[in-house]
């Protein structure tokens, strides 16, 4: 369930790839799984993102850090 994910990617208020209100189009590369999140899903702020060879982490100054490893727990 999306609402169970950490807030920076799971809040569902903003599109994590574009920073627009949720519900808009998702860019093609993101749909193909080729983009990390860039914007906090809770507040729409730009996040600091570090891509690693095997994953990524993204940090919102208000809503904390989420790591792609954590998301695997939700699969």
């Amino acid at each position, binding site marked *: 369930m999306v609402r169970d994910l950490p807030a920076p990617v799971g809040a569902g208020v903003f599109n994590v790839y*574009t*920073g627009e209100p949720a519900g808009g189009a998702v*860019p*093609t*590369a993101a749909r*193909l*799984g*080729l*983009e*990390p999140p*860039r*914007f906090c899903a809770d507040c729409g702020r*730009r*996040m*600091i*993102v*570090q*891509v*690693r*060879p*095997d*994953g*990524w982490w993204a940090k919102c100054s208000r809503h904390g850090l989420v790591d792609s490893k954590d998301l695997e727990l939700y699969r």
Partner: protein
Amino acid sequence: MSDILAVAREQVLERGEGLDQEQTLQVLQLPDDRLDDLLALAHEVRMAHCGPDVEVEGIISLKTGGCPEDCHFCSQSGLFASPVRSAWLDVPSLVEAAKQTAKTGATEFCIVAAVRGPDERLLAQVAAGIEAIRNEVDIQIACSLGMLTAEQVERLSAMGVHRYNHNLETARSFFTNVVTTHTWEERWDTLRMVREAGMEVCCGGILGMGETLEQRAEFAANLAELDPHEVPLNFLNPRPGTPFGDLDVLPAAEALKAVAAFRLALPRTMLRFAGGREITLGDLGAKKGILGGINAVIVGNYLTTLGRPAEADLELLEDLQMPIKALNASL
């Protein structure tokens, strides 16, 4: 006029002499119905002059974003309204990334920074990172830190950096359409110093930035003149907020023709699949490229975008019975 593929078979495959600029252009202009023949020939050339081994590499961004340069394709320029924010990686995270890369069987780990050139802080971080990686991970270390001074080249060489990446990005005649904050010649100077210091030269670029086929052929000829150890081939993945953000992705057939053409222009050079291949070519294209002249891959993620899972590429290489280049073959 002789068929260019017949010419290439005799000149490149049999004599080992790369195609010149005009010949490369003829290859790039081949109709799509010749693509399979072209890829097959490029594969023969690669197998004859490079062998079956594939070099696997992982890359990491040590310093992300906030770059003062205006490379129009790049989401890490501080001059554009890109969503990419600045970030620095600490040394333990760098070591962990090297470990994860080595686990894939990769023999190369490239440390990259989005800078015009390294300052003291960055060089100190690179030195600490290299030392820490060497203490824990058996892997070759490459760097990509922008333009260097002669003294910085020497320092990197002394740190044990065995290969340095600095892309010319595109043809000399097209460069000012891509970058205005420094020149093609400044990049060339860094590459010259890297070679003179005894490091391997890694130099490629990005295809699909609006260059003409003539300029793509010119770029291949520029690289042939440089004669680098490795050429990474990227395909433009248009980044939001950058001047090239609205360009179309290169059609797959055009991208594959370019792969094969670069192989025929550079018969002995390591030709690496790099960024943008997933969105340009998809899964089928990855296989066609590796059977069309490519003999090295970046596995896993890139600097700011994600790639195919490393396992997908490694399984493909296994299916194709192409061995991963061993570390002792790199030394």
